[in-house]
């Protein structure tokens, strides 16, 4: 039973990271219909930023809590700046181009950012400082769920709640929903669509940065390639849940994380990806629009 619970929590942890990244994919898709393949790199940049800031601050002997908060904010701001710039440079000029062009541009951006970090930083794996200490009251449960798992789960839950409130109730959230439903009409009622799109990229990037920092301190090492596989997995999660749907991305992330975790625990870690992508194929066979996605009804 303990083993099951342990796998369950490790699945939730993985799943929440996938969900954080998948939200960025699904929001951007919902608004401009683009699969932003550079999104995984934004996550990787978030991890690197928090690594650099955390390392520097710990040299100067800052307290742990201050390091976590400052590194987190630095990662969010820096990643958001990258997300914003990528949109302005690589996607905005192609807004009215055929759909394939921004997609290619996104893949190009992804390759560019990977190599840029490779050259600017290093190709080695870097040991990420342990930011989250094991808390005493977690001691009795440490064999099934670690403190980091708990922190990751809590942070993810708070981020998602904040996002939901933002989209549902605020002025900018309404503008985002309106833009995703009918961009021309949104402009005609006075919404600055360019600004809404920028905002979407910024929010998505901020979530990815949080994910990047959390997972890096959980796993303990980072590398310029981590964005690639995480991006692919999160994209899978977004498609699984129904791309364009925000609850779908969260659900997809958790389903994917749990599947991987149980496959690793009960079968073999070699089969982790087989199960993950097998599940994707199965769901798309029976529900092509994903778990919570709405089928596009083409009117003739």
């Amino acid at each position, binding site marked *: 039973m303990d083993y099951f619970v342990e796998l369950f929590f490790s699945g939730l942890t993985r799943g929440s990271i996938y969900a954080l990244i998948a939200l960025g994919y699904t929001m951007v898709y919902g608004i401009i219909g683009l699969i932003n393949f550079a999104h995984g790199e934004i996550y990787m940049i978030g991890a690197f930023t928090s690594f650099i800031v955390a390392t520097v601050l710990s040299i100067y002997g800052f307290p742990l809590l201050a390091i976590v908060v400052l590194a987190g904010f630095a990662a969010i701001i820096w990643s958001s700046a990258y997300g914003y710039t990528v949109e302005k440079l690589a996607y905005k000029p192609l807004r009215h181009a055929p759909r394939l062009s921004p997609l290619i541009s996104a893949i190009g951006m992804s390759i560019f950012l990977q190599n840029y970090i490779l050259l600017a930083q290093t190709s080695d794996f870097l040991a990420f400082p342990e930011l989250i200490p094991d808390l005493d009251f977690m001691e009795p449960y440490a064999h099934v769920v670690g403190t980091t798992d708990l922190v990751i789960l809590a942070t993810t839950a708070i981020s998602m709640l904040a996002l939901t409130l933002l989209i549902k109730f605020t002025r900018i959230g309404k503008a985002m929903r309106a833009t995703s*439903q009918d961009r021309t009409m949104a402009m005609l009622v006075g919404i600055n669509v360019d600004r809404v799109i920028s905002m979407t990229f910024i929010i998505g990037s901020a979530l990815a940065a949080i994910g990047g920092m959390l997972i890096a301190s959980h796993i303990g090492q980072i590398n310029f390639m981590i964005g690639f596989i995480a991006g692919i997995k999160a994209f899978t999660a977004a498609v699984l849940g129904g791309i364009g749907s925000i609850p779908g991305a969260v659900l997809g992330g958790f389903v994917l994380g749990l599947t991987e975790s149980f496959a690793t625990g009960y079968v073999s870690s070699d089969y982790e990806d087989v199960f993950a992508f097998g599940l994707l194929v199965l769901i798309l066979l029976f529900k092509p629009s994903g778990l919570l996605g709405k089928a596009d009804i083409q009117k003739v």
Partner: protein
Amino acid sequence: MTAPILQVKNLGMSFGGIRALDELDLEVNSGEIVALIGPNGAGKTTFFNCVTGIYQPTQGDVMLNPPSRSSIRLNNLKPNQVAEKGMARTFQNIRLFQNMTVLENVMIGRHCRTKSFILGAILRNKATREEEYQTIEKSYHILQKMGLEKQANDLASNLSYGAQRRLEIGRALATEPFLLLLDEPAAGMNPQETAELIELINKLQQEGQSILLIEHDMKLVMELSHRIYVMDYGRRIAVGTPEQIRNNPVVIKAYLGEAADA
């Protein structure tokens, strides 16, 4: 005599070799209902698209003269900027935000008249809360005017056809336009819904709203308009009061064609 609220001079729009609009002049005075009519394909909707910034006209000027403010040239502005300057429109086909509630649809219209942003949403300071309260208040007031207040929390897609049309007008009004553009507001309505629409537009006019509308329903046009512009093949072929237009031979020819023996 004050300057007309909308002044269109020499407007032209070409798509490749096709001239959809040709040297078109049009004026709307403050508080006036003006109708733009013409056979299908005459360029009426193209005209609306040029004026609201969806298309960039290839020649001419579109000037908006808000009361007691200097005039604004609308050419080369984006649609959201045009809305901000004070012109709102509806479409021939219904383009509501179907997955939002009726109230939210109107609140979206208030977007360009409000300011709060991310920081306000996080801090929830007094200004933000007050602004949100006012937005809801004003939006609800508009719904009352449209007779939709009972359905405020329904999804827009669940409204009846006539109610959806009214909601579109309400959303446009929420942007506080000096000039309201209606593209075939009565299209697809039954006679009773049309009668209600006429009443509504009349009421808006009495409150001082200037309106420019495209319409095929001649009963509505004749009953409501102070002046009518007639277009054919992208040109203006006549302008005048409903009475003058009804008896204008050029207009009759454009609509019915020339008699074989004439």
